[in-house]
């Protein structure tokens, strides 16, 4: 039986933070992730959407912009455990990916495997380039193939 997976592009519609959304939009257009067992979603509000999107799947791959001090366009492969946890925000808008994943993990509600593809982005005024998006799409396709092969 094919493992059920979900690819979630995270971001907002403004500036370089939309790269996660652009990548999943490109994946949907290409329909390149194979069988219907892999669902592809955009996610603009991680705290409200991830708990629902991460249900009923065997693996999940999150795609998001990162700032890790590297060169813009660099693709990073991460695990949920890699994320720093500063979970004392002043607003519900501050409940982001790392907080939500950590919470779900504590509650035992994360899928067995969660991988993250991060794309290093530039300053706010520099939108994501077609090259970065293509690199992100390729990274997602390769990671999905790996996750499917593992039978996660």
């Amino acid at each position: 039986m094919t493992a059920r997976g979900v690819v979630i592009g995270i971001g907002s519609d403004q500036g370089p933070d939309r790269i996660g959304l652009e990548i999943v939009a490109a994946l949907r257009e290409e329909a390149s992730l194979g069988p219907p067992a892999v669902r592809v979603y955009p996610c603009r509000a991680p705290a409200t959407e991830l708990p629902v999107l991460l249900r009923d799947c065997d693996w999940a791959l999150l795609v998001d912009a990162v700032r890790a001090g590297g060169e813009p366009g660099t693709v990073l492969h991460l695990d949920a455990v890699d994320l720093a946890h500063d979970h004392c925000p002043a607003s519900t808008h501050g409940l982001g990916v790392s907080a939500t994943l950590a919470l779900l993990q504590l509650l035992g509600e994360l899928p067995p495997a969660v991988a993250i593809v991060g794309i290093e982005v530039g300053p706010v005024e520099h939108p994501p380039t077609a090259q970065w998006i293509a690199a992100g799409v390729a990274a997602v396709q390769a990671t999905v193939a790996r996750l499917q092969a593992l039978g996660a």
Partner: protein
Amino acid sequence: MTEPREIKIRVPVLARVEGEGALHLDVRGGRIEQLQLRIYEPPRMFEKFLEGRAYHEVPDMVARICGICPVAYQMSAVQAIERAFGIDPGPWVAAMRRVLYCGEWLQSHALHIHLLAAPDFLGFENALAMAAQHPELVRRGLRLQALGNRIIALFGGRSVHPVGVRVGGFHCAPAQTEVDALLGDLEQSLPEALALLEWTLSLALPVQSQRFVSVALRHDDEYPLYRGRLAADDGLDIDVADYPRHFREFQAPHSTALHSSYHPNGIGDPNERDYLVGPLARLNLNRERLPAKVRQMLQAGAWHGTSDNVFHSIVARAAEICLAISEATRLLHAYQVPDRSYIEVVPREGEAAGCSEAPRGTLWHHYALAADGRVRSARIVPPTSQNQARIERDLSSALEAFGLDRSEDQLRRHAELVIRNYDPCISCATHFLRLSVRRR
């Protein structure tokens, strides 16, 4: 051209790329001489984006101002545009918009109470630490939040940036079977919501009495979500179109966000005050419109009148969760699939205001439209900018009472505790507040 690289690396953070809040204190002789709070405010760009757009594009565009309260932006917008065009979508649309709004209140308030406020008042560092010892508490919050999202998706097509709202009504009406499925879950969740209210009433909340004016919508027949007149607890009672006669926006030198002031006697009068919008202000002005059971519980919990303690916002949110579930249940019990889910719209030149109660407070829109329905100008006043002066005044008194000789880390954490009561609509980086203190 640089080839994209792919590497495997362990990094400590998955950062968002929006702005941060910043707080600057000038302290002299143990007193705050100056306090400046900067909050990033996304709606300002949207006012310009909307110029030249067709009226029917506005609901989808304004929904993207906020990922937590998109319905609120859509509701204030369609109300204003429909007023400008002189159209009334009718009672079915009004009722279902109220249901939709109930979903947003439920989703937003549940998230806030369980993941932000509860850790503060139970003495935990954050929601993670709390979840380790009280997992059922967090699960309750996620259940209620998911239920709110389902209500939004029922009429909006999806829960984030919903696309079901249009000028004149909704694009589609849900099938009776979809409504019936949701109705069962709503009815089952009411006892849990009432238990949540009971729990908030039992919390030992900080005692902090302040003087402020509460501002919110009021309506003759209902607890206001989607419509009403604009009221204040000093007696103000005006049509929403008259908002600019009593409320002034101004640019504070230290902030990119506009501040708002309230002028009880009109803009020309120099007497001005900061004011509070949001759940506590709504409760202060509309308590008698709550369901009887909720009023009884508040009364039994020693809530005999209004509150001047912003820490009581958690109780107000819990009461509004009960209201949202009760109202959505009541209205969906009477649901019938309509012949049409919207009325036809004929644009005309005009301008009008719309105002509704976002989870965080009063959200006021104004549009001027050309004869072909294109937007000439837009003005959007979100609850967070209206609360900014109030937040600064609250911070000033709260931090002085806390003790300014404490470390900057302690001051920052206490400031965030105070700000969380308001649940401001901001974009946050990993650390919300960059705090700078100058002591002399």
